[in-house]
């Protein structure tokens, strides 16, 4: 057991620091880094991430009032609103981009465009975070305040927001970190004026082949994110949860905001698709390419799913996760998306077929630490005592994995892997860096988008939704079948 744990732990550590090692071993810090260019890119990154975070937080707060209002009174409406809030997270980023670019014409390329897309993509998730934390923090004080006759506005101003301040700062910091390292959105809508640090890193390698500068920039970015993450570690407020409804604090304004934004989103997306249908004849130019791209996207999703499930299975074999590994995975910050991909470009041959290995691997390196932090790690750690008991019984590592750990982690792992596979299916950013041609639907849509062929881009993005939906429903189906088998 000791040896298996040690081997797996070292292998995991090595896997996730390998992009850093590969880049360091090939390249050294550039002495003549263009400070002016660096400052300009950092300024852009900070400006767009701060603005996006502020707007996102504001919209998220208002939307959370709608979620709070419907929490207990209208659970069905509450569930629908949650679904709407999470929709931009589940849809491929290209779909969100297409919808927004259709709705706002002329679309403001540059920092404004980045901010708009970021804010829309994450306001829903922010609303959910605020709603959840409100439930943890505010229930204790609510009844006393109501008895005293405090008005809703007064409560929020004097009690609610001060109590939530720490959590709002945490959410704000988290959003800044996410937006700062965003790659796909600035790549498409950043334009020349809105070049962020992440896009500059990409351009340094792709167009200037200036690897030294790219690595230096990546370490600057990692250092900034590390500082931001350190601020975020200050912790969340936690009071004893009471069974008090917060409904009184909520507002239907939040409900209207969510519906307004999402209906607007759906209308502008639909109008793009309809306009695309009018140009459907142009699709014949693509011939079989579209069918191949559709199948390639699905195949990529399948490979990503398999790689994730395999990795999660092996990670579970570790059983009791060593504390250093837990700390590492909880705090690990991947090097920039662009540089992680470039590290893989160095490692693997450039033939197109190798893209089917590189892209899933990139998703693993970039995606697993986030999934670990988003609850997968906690779920595994919650099995600690069960694993200990099985060990004292004399069970071997594979026995524990097969009978104890994996049956309880399988569903969660499948969902996470399915999510990753869906994102891989709809991806264009990582694929753009790692592949030599437009072989997936995402890449074709991105090419159409950047050449302003909005109608066709919208139409093909719909095909992308079908492909992603197909992926995810297969995963859900497998889970359903599994649960039925277990029940019987």
């Amino acid at each position, binding site marked *: 057991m000791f040896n298996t744990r040690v081997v797996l732990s070292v292998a995991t550590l090595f896997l996730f620091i390998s992009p850093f090692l590969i880049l360091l071993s090939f390249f050294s810090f550039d002495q003549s880094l263009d400070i002016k260019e660096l400052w300009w890119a950092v300024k852009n990154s900070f400006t767009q991430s701060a603005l996006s975070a502020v707007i996102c937080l504001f919209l998220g707060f208002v939307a959370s009032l709608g979620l709070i209002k419907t929490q207990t009174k209208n659970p069905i409406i509450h569930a629908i609103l949650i679904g709407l809030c999470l929709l931009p997270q589940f849809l491929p980023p290209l779909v969100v981009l297409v919808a927004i670019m259709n709705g706002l014409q002329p679309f403001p390329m540059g920092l404004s465009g980045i901010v708009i897309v970021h804010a829309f993509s994450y306001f829903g998730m922010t609303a959910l975070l605020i709603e959840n934390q409100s439930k943890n923090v505010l229930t204790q004080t609510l009844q006393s305040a109501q008895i005293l006759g405090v008005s809703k506005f007064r409560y929020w101003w004097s009690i609610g927001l001060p109590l939530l301040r720490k959590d709002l700062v945490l959410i704000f910091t988290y959003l800044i970190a996410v937006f700062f390292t965003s790659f796909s959105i600035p790549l498409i809508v950043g334009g020349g004026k809105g070049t962020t640090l992440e896009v500059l890193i990409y351009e340094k390698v792709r167009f200037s082949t200036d690897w030294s500068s790219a690595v230096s920039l990546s370490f600057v970015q990692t250092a900034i994110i590390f500082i931001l993450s350190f601020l975020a570690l200050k912790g969340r407020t936690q009071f004893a949860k009471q069974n008090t409804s917060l409904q009184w604090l909520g507002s239907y304004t939040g409900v209207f905001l969510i519906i307004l934004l999402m209906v607007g989103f759906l209308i502008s997306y639909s109008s793009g698709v309809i306009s695309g249908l009018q140009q459907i004849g142009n699709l014949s130019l693509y011939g079989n390419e579209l069918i191949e791209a559709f199948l390639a996207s699905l195949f990529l999703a399948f490979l990503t799913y398999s790689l994730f499930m395999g990795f999660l299975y092996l990670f579970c074999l570790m059983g009791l996760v060593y504390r250093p590994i837990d700390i590492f995975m909880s705090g690990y910050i991947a090097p920039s998306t662009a540089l992680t991909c470039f590290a893989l470009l160095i490692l693997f041959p450039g033939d197109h077929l190798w893209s089917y290995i590189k892209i899933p691997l990139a998703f693993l390196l970039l995606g697993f630490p986030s999934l670990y932090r988003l609850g997968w790690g906690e779920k595994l750690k919650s099995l600690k005592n069960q694993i200990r008991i*099985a060990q004292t*019984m*004399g069970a071997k590592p594979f026995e524990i994995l097969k009978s104890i750990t994996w049956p309880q982690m399988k569903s969660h792992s499948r969902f996470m892997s399915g999510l990753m596979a869906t994102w891989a299916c709809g991806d264009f950013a990582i694929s753009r860096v790692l592949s030599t041609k437009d072989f997936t639907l995402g890449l074709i849509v991105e090419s159409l988008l950047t050449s302003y062929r909005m109608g066709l881009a919208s139409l093909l993005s719909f095909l992308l939704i079908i492909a992603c939906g197909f992926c995810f429903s297969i995963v859900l189906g497998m889970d359903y079948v599994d649960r039925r088998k277990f029940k019987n």
Partner: protein
Amino acid sequence: MSTVENLKINKSGFQLTVDRWEILDEGIHVLMGASGSGKSTILKALMGFEQTPGLIWKMGDINLAALPIDKKNLGVVFQTWDLFPHMTAFENVQFAAKVRGISADEFQTRWSLISQQLKMTEFSNTISEQLSGGEKQRTALARAIIGKPRFLLLDEPFSALDADLRSEARLMLKEIVRSQKIPTLLVTHDLDDVKYLSDKVTQMADIASVVRLKK
């Protein structure tokens, strides 16, 4: 008697030391102390989950401390029972027997006996997630003893039960330990556990010293 010697644990800025301690090798030996005094830490050290270089736990000719965790052949019940939630009560116990290498026939014999003594027949096919507190406690106990352990280690196994269930649970534990003849170490801060169960009591203060380490 089994003997524990040279137990030293450094944890969270404290060092807990037990120079020498004799544990009964039949009946129920209760280790008592306030919450946070290190009782559970000692138990985990005996199980093998704490770094304790130099620890000796002699039982007859065997030094249990030198054996790997899976070879010590211990039965363990934690405060939270930690049943395998996706298995039924029966499957939880069966799993323990299987990994201990108990043959199917022997398992059937032992299961009949233990399930009757612990009154488990009514709920043995229920998924453990759906069991009541008392039922979980009995299942955890059955799982711990099915493999004929050398020692039974119990870490406050009744603390999550209601008062009326605790009395019944204590009675069952006493009967089954006596009938199965398994030496048992029970860690608790509950005086009633001491009153109704102990064949011998040890206070933490009598055997262990806790020193705050300099940073």
